[in-house]
């Protein structure tokens, strides 16, 4: 099962305006591993996810998905193995109904309408919103939109999940639901977030980014309780660890 691996080798990325958002980053995410990527605003978290998903091509370095180097030619093929959940679900729900949104990916893969419906039902069942199947996407609550966005990615059977701040803008109940859901997924996961309590609960490993570089990459508990390290990355130790 070693093919569910994400590997970055000396990856750098420079925006067209000359700003280097990512500088010489290297790491490997193993099969089934859940890694939290944290850092202050503008540290390069979202850019990193876009690089891994092939939206941005790296300025230098290599990205390997399942030991295959990502190139312009195979990027579409490799993307099928990744599920990217955006920070704002409204960007991801662009169809009219929840069903059509969740069916968008499977339909693009050329599945028959019967198979598409099966995939949609399975994905909606997994996130617990099968009852919202025929609702208009823009009429859902923020929590429901997040769940629908997750379902729209799960329906494509991704091997690895990339999530950009999955719990931002959510009320405590919806946040808890997403956390419990993420815990159940067997996929390799990369989660960027400012919600450090969630990172502590879900991720076994944490990478801190600062100014586009990796400041530290280690076990989450070791990193998150280190007050000095967290402060140097412009972060705070989670409250649950402070009281211990």
């Amino acid at each position, binding site marked *: 099962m070693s093919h569910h691996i994400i590997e970055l080798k000396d990856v750098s990325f420079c925006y067209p305006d000359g700003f280097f958002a990512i500088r010489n980053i290297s790491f490997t995410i193993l099969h089934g591993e859940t890694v939290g990527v944290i850092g202050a605003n503008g540290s390069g978290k979202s850019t990193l996810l876009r690089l891994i998903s092939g939206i941005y091509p790296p300025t230098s370095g290599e990205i390997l998905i399942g030991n295959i180097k990502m190139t312009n030619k195979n990027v*579409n093929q490799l993307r099928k193995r990744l599920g990217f959940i955006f920070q704002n679900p409204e960007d991801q729900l662009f169809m009219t109904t929840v069903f059509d949104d969740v069916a968008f990916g499977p339909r693009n893969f050329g599945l028959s309408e019967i198979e598409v419906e099966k995939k949609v039902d399975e994905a909606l069942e997994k996130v617990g919103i099968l009852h919202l199947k025929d609702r208009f996407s*823009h009429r859902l609550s923020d929590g429901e939109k997040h769940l629908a966005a997750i379902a729209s990615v799960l329906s494509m059977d991704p091997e690895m999940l990339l999530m950009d701040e999955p719990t931002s803008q959510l009320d405590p109940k919806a946040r808890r639901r997403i956390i419990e859901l993420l815990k159940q997924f067997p996929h390799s996961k990369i989660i960027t977030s400012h919600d450090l309590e969630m990172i502590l609960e879900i991720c076994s490993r944490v990478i801190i980014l600062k100014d586009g570089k990796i400041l530290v990459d280690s076990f989450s508990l070791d990193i998150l309780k280190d007050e000095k390290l967290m402060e140097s990355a412009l972060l705070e130790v989670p409250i649950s660890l402070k009281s211990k």
Partner: protein
Amino acid sequence: MSLLPFFSFPLIITALGEIPFSFILSRVLIIEPFIFFLGILNPVFEPVRGWLSLSSILLKTTLTVSSALLLVSTTGIHRIGYALRLLFVPKLFVFQLLLIYKYMMVLISDVGKTILACKLRSLDIKGIPVSTWGPLLGNLILRTYKRAERIYYAMILKGFEGEYHTGTNLKFSYLDLIYVLFWSCFFISFRFFNISSILGRFVIGVFS
């Protein structure tokens, strides 16, 4: 007068489609003032025929707008998109139409929020100053552009390669054929014969 019988089409479809008349009427009325001002100069330049052409423009617009509204209400935008593709309309245009339909609400709410934010910081000023319109619209365009970019990324990540799949696989049935033939005959006969005059003469003939 020969235009009036054409109104039986929207009236019959509204009734058959069980769509509230007020729904169609309220939307048609929004358009009417624009059309009215478009033809308002006709009576000025041509005092006799001008009024006739103005009322003709108004009637034709009402027919067109109500028919278009009925098409969207009874068919649904995705089926229309599918039908357009069957009619060989380029996929780019069809997809653009569907995205505009979907994101109109999101954009309207964005505009609303921006205007509210602007008003809350200019409480003593009535409306939005002309000097503010430039940056406000510029900001909206930039935000729209960014959003469009993000949506496009979301689409390509879901395997989108330019073809729009609605999952609709409609077959042309006998009922559809009857519908097309009936309304085609209806429109052609109403276009080439003055049905109202024929009907009028027929009724007068019967009663006399």
